[in-house]
Each structure stands twice: as C-alpha cells, then as structure tokens.
C-alpha cells in the first residue's frame, strides 16, 4: 500500500485537482456559458499563493496549514472579484464569442505574468514551501474539497438557482421572459467557477512546488474543456470523471512512449465523434437509480 501511494500518490492528487478545475468550468456551463477562463483564475490563485509563501511570509520547515487556508481563501476571493469585473461586460457575449473573449483573457493574463517582476517573469516562482510531507497528506485536503464542491454542485443542480441556470442554458430568451435575470445568473455562475479555480490554483502552487506562466495557457484551457465535454457536460459527474480519466490517460498510455500524445489527441477526436454527450449522461445515472431524471430533457446533443 505504501509503495502504491509513493508511486501513484502524486498522480492521484493531480487527478483530484484537475477534476476540481473541470468543475470550475462546469459551473458556467450549467448556465450554458462556454467559458475557457478557468486556467486564468487558476494561474492567479497560484501566483497569490506563491508570492505570499515565498515573498511575504518567510517560514522555516513545514509551511503552516492555516496560512495555506488563508491563501486558498485569498485566491478564491481575488479570482471572484476579477471574474465579476470581467464577467459583467463579457457575459453579454454568447457561445463562441464568449469562449473567444475568455481565451483572450487567459492569454492577456499569461503575457502580463510573463513580464511582471513579482511573478518571476518567464522563469516563474521556485521553491514554494510545502505544507505537507507527502502527496497522501495533500489528498487529505484535496479529496474533502472535491467532495465539498461536488456536493455543492449537486445541491445547486436541484436548487432554484440551478434551475435558473438550466433555464438559461436551454433558452435564454424564454428564461428572460419568465422573469429570470440572465445577466445576474450568468455572472453568478462565472464567479462561482472562477472562485473554485482560484482556490485550486493556490493549492496547486504548493503541490507543484513551482509556478510559472505555463500554468495558465490556452492549452490548459482546452484540457479543462475536454474534461467536461468528454466526461459529459450535463451533470457534475462528467467533469469529475473526465478530469480523472484525462489526467490519468497520459500515465496509462506511458508504455506507448512518444506515441502517447498522439493517441491522446486521437481519443479526443474519437470521443467527440462517437460520444457526443460524454461518458456520463443524466439519463444513464437515472438508469442506475442514483438520481432522479433531470427536469429538463436535453434538446440537442452535448
């Protein structure tokens, strides 16, 4: 068991962190908004943690746990505020336009972080202190967090706010006519997603020990989008399963050596063509008897 964790512990924590990132993208998607901004907020949260723990507070030995919690909170809050500022104008855009605006947002943040002194420029920030001795202890923080966010998503899906999200996703004009304020709910979904991404960034910075501009790139945004779409975008389970599966996939394919990234791309292609609704579908979950059938049946695919 010990060897299992020492071999795969890092991967397992990474899978949970990526599943959480997937969830951060799932929240806007609940309201029908395709936002690729998650890696931008993730990078922001990570930089906040990295700067605090290496430049503001100087500690010896293990990094204090309460400071880590503070960083997570700060990362989430800062991301939430930024999301509010960006979201109010940006969420007037629909579909592909919003996706493009969020790509632009991520790229701008990336170039800025490449050029600022405080973020360490192109080199990034090194030697971020460790609050835990091994990946297993990280898992004891990240797993409850994953369960908490997933539980929140599950509650949200069935709440009044969640139903407003669904209504906007299915038909924004109709939702508006029914007295739902689309802008309010879209910005809310965007801010929730950003806060999750920012908080996860703060943990990841410690976990990865180093933080640089490569954390928040277009490629990262695409990976996270793939988690949700390959996993299934109609239930929060999709983001989790997709995050787990696609993070583990390169490791599973490791015996293929240099071919594994090619196979990874091929699987995305095949997934898009043959699993248009993703791996996990609400109807499928309902058949398992775990959940009630979703109130609104999906009208199209995806």
């Amino acid at each position, binding site marked *: 068991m010990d060897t299992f964790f020492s071999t795969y512990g890092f991967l397992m924590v990474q899978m949970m962190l990526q599943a959480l990132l997937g969830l951060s993208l799932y929240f806007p998607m609940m309201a029908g908004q395709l936002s690729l901004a998650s890696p931008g907020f993730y990078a922001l949260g990570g930089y906040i943690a990295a700067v605090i723990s290496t430049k503001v507070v100087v500690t010896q030995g293990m990094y204090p746990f309460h400071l880590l919690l503070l960083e997570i909170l700060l990362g989430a809050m800062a991301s939430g505020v930024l999301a509010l500022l960006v979201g109010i104008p940006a969420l007037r855009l629909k579909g592909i336009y919003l996706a493009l605006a969020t*790509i*632009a947002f991520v790229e701008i943040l990336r170039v*800025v972080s490449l050029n600022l002194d405080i973020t360490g420029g192109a080199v990034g920030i090194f030697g971020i202190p460790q609050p835990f001795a091994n990946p297993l202890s990280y898992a004891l923080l990240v797993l409850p967090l994953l369960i908490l966010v997933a539980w929140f998503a599950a509650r949200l899906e069935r709440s009044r706010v969640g139903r407003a999200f669904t209504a906007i996703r299915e038909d924004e004009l109709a939702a508006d006519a029914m007295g739902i304020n689309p802008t309010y709910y879209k910005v809310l979904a965007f801010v929730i997603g950003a806060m999750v991404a920012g908080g996860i960034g703060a943990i990841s910075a410690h976990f990865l020990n180093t933080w640089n501009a490569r954390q928040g790139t277009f490629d990262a945004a695409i990976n996270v989008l793939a988690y949700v779409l390959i996993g299934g975008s109609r239930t929060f389970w999709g983001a989790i399963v997709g995050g787990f599966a696609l993070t583990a996939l390169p490791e599973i394919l490791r015996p293929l050596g240099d071919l594994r990234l090619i196979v990874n791309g091929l699987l*995305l292609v095949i997934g898009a063509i043959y699993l*248009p609704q993703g791996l996990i579908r609400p109807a499928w979950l309902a058949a398992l008897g775990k959940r009630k059938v979703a109130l609104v049946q999906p009208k199209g695919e995806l």
Partner: protein
Amino acid sequence: MELGTFIQSLLNGLSIGSVYAIFALGYTLIFSILGIINFAHGAVFTLGAYFTYFLIGGVNNGTGVLTNLGLPFGLPFVLATLLGSLLAGGVGVILDRMAFRPLRARGADPLLALVLSLGLALLLVNLAQYLIGAEILSFPSNVYGDWLPPAINFGSTENPIPVRGVQIIIFTVSMFVVVILTLLINRTKIGKALRAVAENATTANLLGISTERFILFTFFLSGFLGGLAGTLVATSFSISGPYFGVTYGLKGLAVIVLGGLGDIPGAVVGGLVIGLAEAFVPGDFSAYKEAVAFALLFVILLVRPQGLLGRKVIQKV
C-alpha cells in the same frame, strides 16, 4: 516618432499583417460555411511549412523518427511552395472526410466540432513532433533566389530605412492571394455557390448545389491558405518546431473576430490592423507585443462583437 522608424514599422506591420490575413482567411472560410472554428488550422499552417521545407530538398535535422530524412530531389522554391500548400490543402480534405463530416452527419453541436478540431490539432502537432522532432528547421537565407537583396533601402543614403527583402515578397504574395481569392468568391460560379452554402446550406442544397462538395472544397482552400501562410512565415523566420503554428492559430482568432467572424474582407482588414498594431508597439513595451492581438480581441468583443466589418446578427425567437 521619427519618419524613418514610422515607415519601417508601417512596412513591417503590413507584411506580417498580410500573412495574418491569408492565414485568417482559412479560418473565416470554414466559419462562414460551417459556423465552426477549426483549431487544427494552426497545425495545418505548420505542416504546410514542413511540406515546403522538404520539397525544396531540405534535410530533417530534428531527432524524430524520420531523423536525417531528406527527399532525393529538390524542387525550385516557387514550385515547392505551391505543392506544399496543395498538400496542406489535402490535409484539410482528409480532416473533413475523416473527422468533421462524420460529426456533421450526426448533427452534433458546433461546440463539439470545436473539441474535435482541438483533438485534431493535438494529433497533428504531436504526430509532427514524433516524426520530425522538436528542433528548429531553417530555410536557406537565399531561398527566394540570389536576386533578392537581404534588405531594401526605402530611405536615402543618409537616412536609411531598411526593410527586409523577404518582408516585401511576403506582402506582395499575400496581397496577390487576397485579390485572387476575392475574385474567386465574388466573380465565379464556384464563389457564388460557396456564398449560397454559407448563407443557408439547406436551401442551397435544395437548389441543386452539392453542399458536401463545397464544404470539402472549403476545407481544401482553407488548408491551402494555411499552408501557404506557414511557408511564408517560415521563410521570414524559421520553423520553430511542431508548435510553430499554435501562436499564429490563436492570433488568427483575434484577426477574424476583429474583422467580423465569417467576413472575408474583414479578415484582411483584421490581419492588417493587428499586424500594424504589433509593429507600432513601442520598444519599451515590446514584451507585451504578444498580448496586443488579444487585447484588441477583448476590446472589440465588448464594444462591437460583430467585428469591424461584420453584420449585426439579430436573434430571432
């Protein structure tokens, strides 16, 4: 700003902007017909440059599986560029047949086509890395022939305004392609059919236009333009590895949104605007040059989402 520097920036901006334009035209053609953004376009750009490089007889000094590969012959550059771009167009055709068409046949959401194209980009880029390697491949500096001087002086002897000869060639070729393409779209029967398919595919089909054939043609044209743009940029700088096209792929997005998604003159205007904006970034802020296109993209989306030349879409219930 000094007049000399101004003219120099202007010419450099126009040159790079014109490449952005023909690259972005490949994006915008597919968007106008299918309403999807083909992220694999950046990968096709890279492949086009690789094709031309090998066709002129270049040897692979990368460490991929095909290391030290070289064709036993070398074509003249102009012919190699043409053939390389045609091959890139062929890649576009394969992508449509193998991936986009099966997805279309299932009537899937356009968002899924986005994911599909990203998967294809990942596939192509890593395939290139596997076969060729991640090393930089450079075209010979006199690839256009010895008649082309490395730099042309646009100023006087006292106040020289040197502009690289390659830049002039790139601008001329790109503008030529833009004119040909505009004529093709606006003055020929093929162009008329393409516009009909773009306006409404179902109606066009009912009126006897073979929609699938024109979609395939669009993918070919898009691949051709992408491949040509890749070759032109590679002769100006070099092929910086399989990820060569990724930055251009993202900038191309900014270009088409700036001009208006799916709008052909818009893509040209957008390309030139972004090329010029980048060229005029002051030296002190040159590190932020990479963000210019995205800042413009973000601003234009907020101020005028339909783009500079685009039509406003009125949502009908």
